[in-house]
């Protein structure tokens, strides 16, 4: 859908700007290069792409972008080029790329038999991107212009610099204009005239684009070695580089903190359910990881049920996962755990066995292969604060989501009557019983709540990692680590535990490598638990004694 809009948009832009008489002529140019596109050699295809880009046809953008997207096919026998669009799953509409007339509709099997995709490699992909960027530099859409200019910066050559020199004065958007000027300055910095060079270098000082940094480093080595260079150039390059690297290292730290917070949020989401079942109730729940897994699989099932509205599927998946895993939790508590209260060893063994059963069950139902959970568009990609700092959307949403879950749970525990009963039962069961609380039910609901929260965590994890039968195992150790480190029975402890572990891990990783960082964190926790056996936020008072 997005692609269609994109294409329609480009066609409109170009149709408006061009003469009808030109059309037939330039279209025939495209037509003639089609023959080269069906060739096996990538060099032939490059020639074809170049001539299509230079044809000046209104269809050039459509044709080039459909090659890039892998939607341009050719008939295996007569080599006719066609555009292929998937209308409904496994059904394809085949249209002529120049006349835009419908040729036929085909199923997946027929398509595979009769047509072959115009294959491209990375070199061609780069070429296509470059040509498309040059063709869309006057696009009406600001973000397209920005994207195009950014692509041109990566690969500047005299002709694109000319193009940008024309486009920059006409540009109205300040952001795009600035980027265009950076491109021009990068090219000017290599000029023969020291005055122009000096001006360009000063303009580039503090710019965060990696291309600019590469250029400055290059100039620096060039000037240090050469005696013939203008004496003003070297200091200018030096100060420009200093300004840049200071900013870059600052943003690197900001990025590291964000990485730590996001890892902490993942740990929090994985552990917060356990903070209820293990932390509050004291059940050593080895099947906690499998509750995460069930939540992730619920996401998969929800997406299978609503294939046409993937964008909203997570909003359905969250309550669905809560209900599914919550009910599973209640069933587990009523069926197994309630017979084992006060016998931690048996509970451990029973829940461990249960986790194996659940894993194999999932393996039998969904197959041992990982299932593909789609990440909605709004969670993909990253937000670019500046060229040196871009934060990925999925991690940002997870941080926000983890906090929402934590505060929701705190509210539930502190402000509702169910929360009150729950705390009463866990702190003094007999007294609670005497006050008329049905402790059995409160136990079941509490365990259900912990499991349900784990299910919600599973929905979040499905966006980050594999959804497979082993998903839970990967997180069970981390979850226990967070809860024990934070202090059993305290949600704030779980929160701070997760965040501290996340940030420590991420700050150590660049220095020690991922494997060793993990080991160091574990050693740190062992030492910490030796000193403070009850974790960071230990419960005080009578409740802690029991």
């Amino acid at each position, binding site marked *: 859908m997005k692609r269609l809009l994109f294409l329609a948009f480009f066609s409109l832009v170009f149709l408006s700007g061009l003469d009808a008489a030109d059309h037939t002529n330039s279209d025939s140019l495209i037509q003639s290069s089609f023959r080269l596109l069906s060739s096996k050699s990538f060099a032939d295809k490059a020639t074809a792409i170049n001539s299509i880009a230079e044809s000046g046809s209104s269809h050039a953008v459509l044709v080039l972008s459909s090659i890039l997207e892998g939607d341009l096919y050719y008939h295996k026998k007569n080599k006719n080029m066609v555009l292929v669009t998937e209308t409904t799953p496994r059904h394809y509409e085949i249209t002529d790329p120049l006349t835009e007339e419908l040729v036929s509709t085909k199923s997946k099997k027929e398509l595979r038999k009769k047509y072959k995709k115009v294959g491209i490699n*990375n070199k061609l992909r780069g070429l296509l*991107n470059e040509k498309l960027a040059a063709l869309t530099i006057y696009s009406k859409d600001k973000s397209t212009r920005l994207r195009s200019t950014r692509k041109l910066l990566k690969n500047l050559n005299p002709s694109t610099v000319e193009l940008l020199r024309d486009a920059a004065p006409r540009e109205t958007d300040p952001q795009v204009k600035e980027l265009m000027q950076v491109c021009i300055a990068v090219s000017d910095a290599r000029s023969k005239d020291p005055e122009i060079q000096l001006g360009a270098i000063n303009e580039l000082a503090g710019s965060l684009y990696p291309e600019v940094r590469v250029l400055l*480093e290059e100039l620096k080595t060039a000037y240090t070695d050469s005696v013939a260079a203008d004496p003003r150039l070297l200091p200018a390059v030096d100060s420009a580089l200093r300004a840049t690297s200071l900013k870059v290292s600052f943003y690197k730290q900001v990025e*590291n903190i964000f990485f730590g917070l996001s890892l902490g949020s993942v740990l929090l989401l994985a552990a917060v359910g356990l903070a209820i079942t293990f932390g509050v109730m004291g059940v050593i729940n080895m099947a906690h990881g499998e509750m995460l897994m069930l939540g992730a699989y619920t996401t998969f099932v929800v997406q299978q049920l609503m294939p046409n509205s993937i964008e909203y599927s997570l909003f359905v998946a969250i309550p669905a996962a809560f209900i599914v895993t919550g009910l599973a939790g209640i069933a587990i508590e009523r069926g197994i755990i309630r017979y084992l209260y006060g016998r931690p060893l048996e509970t451990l063994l029973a829940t461990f066995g249960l986790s194996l059963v659940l894993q194999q069950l999932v393996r039998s139902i969904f197959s*041992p292969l990982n299932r593909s959970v789609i990440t909605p568009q709004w969670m993909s*990609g990253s937000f670019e604060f500046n060229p040196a700092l871009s934060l990925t959307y*999925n991690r940002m949403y997870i941080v926000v989501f983890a906090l929402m879950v934590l505060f929701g749970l705190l509210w539930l525990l502190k402000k509702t009557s169910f929360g009150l009963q729950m705390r009463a039962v866990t702190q003094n069961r007999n007294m609670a019983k005497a006050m008329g609380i049905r402790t059995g039910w409160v136990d079941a609901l509490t365990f259900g709540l912990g499991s349900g929260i784990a299910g919600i965590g599973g929905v979040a994890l499905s966006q980050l990692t594999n959804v497979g039968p*082993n998903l839970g195992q990967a997180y069970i150790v981390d979850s226990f680590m967070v809860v024990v480190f934070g202090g059993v029975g305290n949600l704030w402890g779980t929160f701070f535990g997760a965040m501290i572990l996340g940030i420590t891990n*991420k700050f150590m990783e660049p220095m020690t490598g*991922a494997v060793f960082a993990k080991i160091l964190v574990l050693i740190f926790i062992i030492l910490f638990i030796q000193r403070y056996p009850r974790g960071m936020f230990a419960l005080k008072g009578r409740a802690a004694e029991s």
Partner: protein
Amino acid sequence: MKFRNWKIQAILVVLGMLLLPQLGYSADKIKVGVLHSLSGTMAISETTLKDTVLMMVDEQNEAGGLLGRELEAVVVDPASDWPLFAEKMRELIEVHKVDVVFGCWTSVSRKSVLPVVEELNGLLFYPVQYEGEESSKNVFYTGAAPNQQAIPAVDYLMNEVGAQRWVLAGTDYVYPRTTNKILEAYLKQKGVADEDIMINYTPFGHSDWQTIVSDIKAFGSAGKKTAVVSTINGDANVPFYKELGNQGLSAEDIPVVAFSVGEEELSGIDTAPLVGHLAAWNYFMSAESEENDKFIEAWHTFIEDEDRVTNDPMEATYIGFKMWAAAVEKAGTTEVDAVRPAMYGIEVPNLTGGTAVMNTNHHLSKPVLIGEIQDDGQFEIVWSTDGEVKGDAWTDWLPESSLIVANWTDPINCGNFNTETKKCSGQNY
């Protein structure tokens, strides 16, 4: 008393029913052992290979079996538990008396099985690309050795893509460590400087790739063309590629070539952000040949699912099975000591259009292909070697193994023969 009698009778009947099928096995049947994990972490990859062997057995039976005898598959589940692989291997050979075994995926499972298969003089076909440095008398390696996958991939990146800086990223275990050691030595011999090589290891199932991807991004923005050679294994790949996509590292900027990512692994992810990243294999499902079309169709019919993909280890299993069948026909028996010599020089058409040949070092000659990931989860073949590449058991790029060759025919008859001292170490692995 009467009651007890009835009980004993019942037990006897049940026992009889259990025994009957065993007795019913005519001694004529040729038994094919399948040693692939059907549960645990490796089930994701290995289940497919079990199905492939079953399909091949079915096909062979429909074509009249072997030597006029019917084939029967014996499937056991080593459950991704390395020591259990050895026990199950023993069970297959001693209890089930199988004639051949197709199995193992990870190197550590193969190493665990080796002493058993050598002690009992069994026959194992190992279908997965691996780190080399091994040649056992009782094992045929139908997957790629490093010179059939890693080295050509690096050559491609160096010559066709123009890569000058290298990130060698891998999971922390024997295959990536050995492969990266070989690649590092190779790159240095090609004149790559120390500061242009970055080596990184991560634990199994690593899922938080933010820092590493950000480091790769920084490493790659130094002006020289950078490429990542990934020996990241299994599940860890999905979050790795997801993070690459999210941080905006496209294949045009920094291509990633992977040795453990195939069609099967891609079927679990949304491949749109991965388009253009590379993989090096000896087979891709998109290869155009009649054999391949037939194989894919047979697979879809067997597995009853049109969406299932085929991959390189499946082709290796296919080639291994066909070769074994041909060798049995040639030898006229399933005796290991007769089949083994019959294997040498056996030719089987591979699925990509050429012929695979079994060499006397127990490794195959087959072509090497480089493919780019497409948005439908398939690979576009962008490069292939001119002809078949002969598998090299002992790499030429490490000083300690460059002198060693494997040859299981006279006069050498050794899997670890030092060409300088003219001695066989006797230790084949």
